[in-house]
């Protein structure tokens, strides 16, 4: 049991940190992908990253070109973009500040440090100059998660933090898959070409999934990648895994609440995912499925808010 406001803050603290980490990883992997593909600066594809974030409308309104410089700025340090790394870390810190009394001191200090680091880097503009920063953001995410795992009692504070992290992940992994599927696949003749495999390898890498994927499927093709990222029961960034464990957290939170609306909605979403036939889905309409799933996630977000956070 905890204050609703505090539960809300700790949930968003952890969600924003996960978001910052994801954006940093996307950018990082995209850079490596461009190098792998041997593309010249003019040919590089940066726009899919904006599509991944779901903020393309805002970007198109405020930026004239979709080149590396503007996209890196938009995703990393643009304080008008609510989902930039800078905005996410800023909000994570603001939320952490309001829950300082319930989180381990080291966790607060880590977030505070990351915030100051972001301020210090925020004048740099090129990916090259920012490599070390992105690495730091990713490592901080892991560091943060590790400190929570090792230092926080498994009470409501923990469950809200973990649920925030997992729901963010359940959203980002699906979105990434969708965007890559949409943008990278339209040229039918390239399916299963080496070019295609490199791209899907990059997708796996951007969710730290490459090694785990190989152990299960050995070689890369988009059907297996989709299968793995959506339905793996064992991989901690898959949509299925994220929902499974978010449900565990929600069950713990709702232990004293019979007929908890948010739990019911979460279970419904998870059931739909588990009932989906992966092979048929990929053949018929992955995009449509993910679209519908994302609407379900939005409903769940609203339901979490209504059940726990609203006055």
């Amino acid at each position, binding site marked *: 049991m905890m*204050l609703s406001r505090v539960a809300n803050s700790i949930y968003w603290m952890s969600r924003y940190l996960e978001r910052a980490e994801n954006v940093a990883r996307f950018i990082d992997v995209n850079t490596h992908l461009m190098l792998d593909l041997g593309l010249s600066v003019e040919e590089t594809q940066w726009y899919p990253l904006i599509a991944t974030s779901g903020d393309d409308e805002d970007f198109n309104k405020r930026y004239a070109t979709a080149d590396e410089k503007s996209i890196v700025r938009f995703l990393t340090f643009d304080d008008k973009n609510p989902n930039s790394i800078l905005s996410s870390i800023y909000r994570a810190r603001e939320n952490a500040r309001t829950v*300082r*009394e319930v989180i381990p001191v080291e966790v607060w200090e880590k977030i505070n440090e990351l915030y100051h680091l972001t301020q210090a880097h925020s004048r740099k503009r090129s990916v090259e100059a920012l490599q070390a920063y992105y690495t730091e953001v990713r490592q901080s995410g892991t560091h943060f998660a590790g400190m929570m795992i090792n230092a926080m009692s498994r009470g409501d504070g923990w469950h809200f933090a973990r649920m925030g992290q997992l729901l963010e992940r359940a959203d980002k992994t699906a979105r990434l898959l969708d965007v890559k599927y949409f943008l990278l696949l339209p040229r039918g003749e390239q399916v299963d070409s080496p070019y295609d495999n490199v791209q899907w390898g990059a997708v796996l890498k951007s969710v730290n999934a490459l090694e785990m994927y190989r152990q299960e499927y050995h070689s890369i093709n988009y059907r297996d990648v989709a299968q793995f990222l959506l339905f793996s029961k064992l991989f901690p960034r898959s949509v299925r895994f994220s929902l499974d464990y978010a449900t565990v957290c929600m069950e713990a939170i709702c232990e004293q609440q019979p007929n908890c609306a948010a739990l019911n909605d979460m279970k419904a979403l998870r059931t739909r995912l588990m009932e989906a036939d992966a092979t048929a889905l990929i053949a018929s309409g992955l995009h449509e499925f993910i679209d519908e799933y994302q609407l379900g996630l939005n409903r769940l977000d609203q339901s979490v808010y209504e059940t726990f956070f609203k006055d």
Partner: protein
Amino acid sequence: MSLESYKTEGFFDELFASDGVPHPAAAGLVEQLDALSRADLKRRQKQAEDILYQSGNTFNVYGDKKGTEKILPFDIIPRLVSAADWAKLERGINQRIRALNLFIQDIYNDQKILKDKVIPAELIFSSACYLKPCEGLSPPKGVWTHISGTDFVRDGDGEFYVLEDNLRCPSGISYVLENRAVQKRILPKAFQTLKVRPVSNYGDHLYKTLKFIAPEGKDEPNIVVLTPGIYNSAYFEHAYLAQQMGVPLCQNSDLVVEDDTVYMRTTQGLKQVDVIYRRIDDEFIDPQVFRKDSLLGVPGIMNAYRKGKVALANAPGTGIADDKAVYAYVPKIVKYYLGEDAIAQNVPTYICEDDKERDYVLANLDKLVVKAVNLSGGYGMLIGPKSTKAEQKEFAEKIRAKPRDYIAQPTLSLSRAPTLIGNGIEGRHVDFRPYSLFGEDVFTLPGGLTRVALKKGSLVVNSSQGGGSKDTWVLGEENYYGVAE
């Protein structure tokens, strides 16, 4: 670096008896400081600042839209209080707090002290801190000021004088605890040799005090800290204290009053609150009773308090006893209620409301410090010897217009303490605020906030005016650090 060349320049110094000669109690510390090179000292100073910045112990600078955060400047050379000095301070504070509690209880109930004409009744009823809604109230266990901080300065004679009683929401205790945590990392060896008394158990004492005032029958009371919110300059401290006690930190929106009972909104519905350590000023705490325009408070909380459903620390109304004009009467208050002479001495104070004393003040503005009774933080002050004729004229007009609002005191020769300045160690003026808790008994934490005026010659130590702080080591007879902390 050698402290042999350190000059006291005629001031009473907290570490040195005379140029290059430490007080006996400080000899061990001075020896250790002497052994450090200049570069080493500077490195440690930098390290301390980094730790404070990293831990986010910052305060927001009001009026700065960009949300600039600053650490309270920290000086790594501690200030020492000898065991004998501390014993006297402790007795003085204890006596003062007991007397002031009896005074507040009396003022809001029988008003015997006014009927006996020990204090002019007009002085009380004209105070902005006198709260009519508190008339007839008696807080649980008769305690009004559960948490307080008494400001002391040391004059040229080496004597401690009370400058001010802070009986409402004194801040700064978190700096005491954090400064100590940092200091232990900066000069670890010194602690073992000096028998410094520990401060880290403050949270336990605070919790015990709050638990003591819980309504009858609440064996496991639900205690919370109430903060105005994240934009308050002392927010760090509010969160820190909640964390030290392991209790929820609430904002007004977290609390709701139903049927004269206070509840907090949790993920599992409403849960009753029994004790509130509120860090919101009286006039903002309940818009139904005090300021109607306040958005910080909790409507109905005063009714719940009146009915004994919830305990508030500190009790509303305590401000009447730390009104700067009432301050002048504290020695009489001690005598009246306890029949004892005050152990902790006041700084002589002139009350401008009094015709004779006002004439003296107006004739001696160039020698006195004038303070507005309702302002703090170093605002609304005239420091006579450092003021211009124009400033004196301005204050003379203010005093004549509203004499009740001003008091004056002679300028003291504030003691100094060695402080790391640039590349050397120089004397800087300091004050001292120990913190006390009043529950079952009066407990004063053996330590306190030493504020230091970092500007050469300056007497103003407030953080809003460029002051910093030092760790304060109260020395004991036993080696405390050998066993605990």
